[in-house]
């Protein structure tokens, strides 16, 4: 069947390109090792199998550090989403509130988090509180910007409909503005979800601390780098990438699940 062969094709294409990339990688590593010696090659551009064996030998350390980072990312993400949502409701409640507060939200957003990070460490010390605060700062703005946009752009005709029904302000918010803003909010949440692991890892670079020699992913990056454990460093990159995938996957699933019944972005274009 045509659709089956298409499926095979769409699975085969990334596998093939992946194999080519691996082969090129091996070639470069090999060529580099031949010209400068394999001891140097190992700490500049390790063979892929050296990376996977580092991944295996460090598996317990990396698992522990991934859990630490995932926890910081999750707490920071949840805080960004809930505080962001609450602030959006406040901003959308009246025009004067938005006028009064939004510029300051922007100021906060425009200040790079890397500049604020040392200040957080100063206030909260090394460790989880600072790391989650950094994650929060990174994820918070997309939630606020998108949700506020959704809350204030409710369809005029729907508002008229509610007015004709003598709806109270509370009913208008609960039954119209909040569900109407849902796709916008979830878009903000998706962006925050993508940024959360990045935030937690960057947070680690500034505020990471270790427990028994193991810290978060960002901490391990610094540690491996200083010890010239480069295959381990690559393995850490691999782990960080997988954490990102898991995080974004969960958030995307939530987005799809909440909108699948009615919103264009989530349902299949198919009329029954």
């Amino acid at each position, binding site marked *: 069947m045509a659709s089956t062969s298409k499926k095979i094709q769409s699975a085969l294409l990334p596998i093939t390109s992946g194999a080519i990339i691996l082969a090129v990688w091996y070639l470069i590593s090999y060529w580099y090792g031949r010209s400068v010696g394999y001891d140097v090659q190992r700490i500049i551009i390790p063979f892929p199998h050296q990376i996977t064996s580092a991944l295996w030998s460090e598996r317990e350390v990396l698992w522990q550090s991934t859990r630490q980072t995932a926890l910081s990312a999750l707490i920071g993400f949840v805080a960004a989403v809930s505080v962001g949502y609450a602030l959006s409701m406040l901003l959308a409640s009246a025009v004067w509130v938005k006028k009064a507060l939004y510029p300051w939200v922007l100021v906060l957003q425009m200040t790079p988090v890397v500049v604020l990070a040392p200040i957080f460490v100063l206030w909260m010390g090394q460790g989880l509180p600072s790391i989650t605060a950094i994650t929060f700062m990174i994820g918070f703005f997309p939630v606020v910007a998108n949700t506020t946009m959704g809350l204030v752009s409710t369809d005029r005709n729907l508002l008229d409909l509610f007015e*004709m029904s*003598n709806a109270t302000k509370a009913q208008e918010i609960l*039954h119209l503005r909040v569900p109407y803003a*849902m796709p916008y909010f979830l878009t903000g949440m998706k962006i925050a979800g993508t940024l959360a692991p990045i935030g937690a890892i960057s947070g680690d670079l500034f505020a990471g601390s270790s427990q028994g020699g193991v810290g978060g992913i960002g901490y391990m990056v610094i540690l491996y780098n200083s010890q010239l454990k480069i295959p381990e460093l690559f393995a850490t990159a691999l782990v960080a990438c997988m954490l990102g995938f898991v995080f974004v996957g969960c958030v995307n699933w939530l987005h799809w699940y909440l909108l699948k019944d*009615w919103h264009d972005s989530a349902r299949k274009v198919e009329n*029954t």
Partner: protein
Amino acid sequence: MTTNSNNIPMVRLAGAHKRFGETTVLEDINFQAAKGEFISLVGPSGCGKSTLLKIIAGLHSLSEGEVVVDGMNPKNAREEMAFIFQEANLLPWKRVQQNTELPLKLRGESTERRVETARKMLELVNLSHALDKFPWQLSGGMRMRVSIARALTLAPRVLLLDEPFGALDEMTRDNLNEDLLRIHARDQWTAFFVTHSAAEAVFLSNKVVVLSANPGRISQVIEIDLPKERNAELREGSAYLNYVAKVSNAIRTVH
């Protein structure tokens, strides 16, 4: 046509002006509609038909003059009015049943009453088979039927329709017109119906109000003296076609 000059009019506009900033949208509108009348508002684009409808609904206020609905200020008469919009204007996240129940829900009616009334109204517009569908699963005509059912749940005495069938194909539109007349014969609400189509206006109404543009003024009120019982056959009769020609001509010459 209903003639009850001794009755209090259901809707009355007297010396009504509407300005948006510098522009006068409606000028000196004087008009009244008795209970059960079906009034169509026609006229070139920008003549303020929709604005007039929203003034009766109390969604816009007048700059000058008076509008009275059943002896009240429109805002106080909301419970007696329902508005049907250009698009079906359904909540996309609610199923047909819940969409129909919405006005009752907002009014705080009990669940049983809500469910029962919505069912009845959906039956009236032949949608009993689609209670559990989402709006995106319906055709444009079906969505409009839901919108009509929703408006009827509150048993309105005045129904305001803002070009409700403008985006539909001709056959769907004709069917909906016939359904609307059937329900009107049953419930006898007073209707204000904005449309671009002379044929639709003549088919539905006992009076067609022709507005001129810039500013919107009543240029002519054409009484449609056709039998009350109207069906598809009426559309082929010469009396009907003469009225359509008359209304089209009136719209064309108001510029």
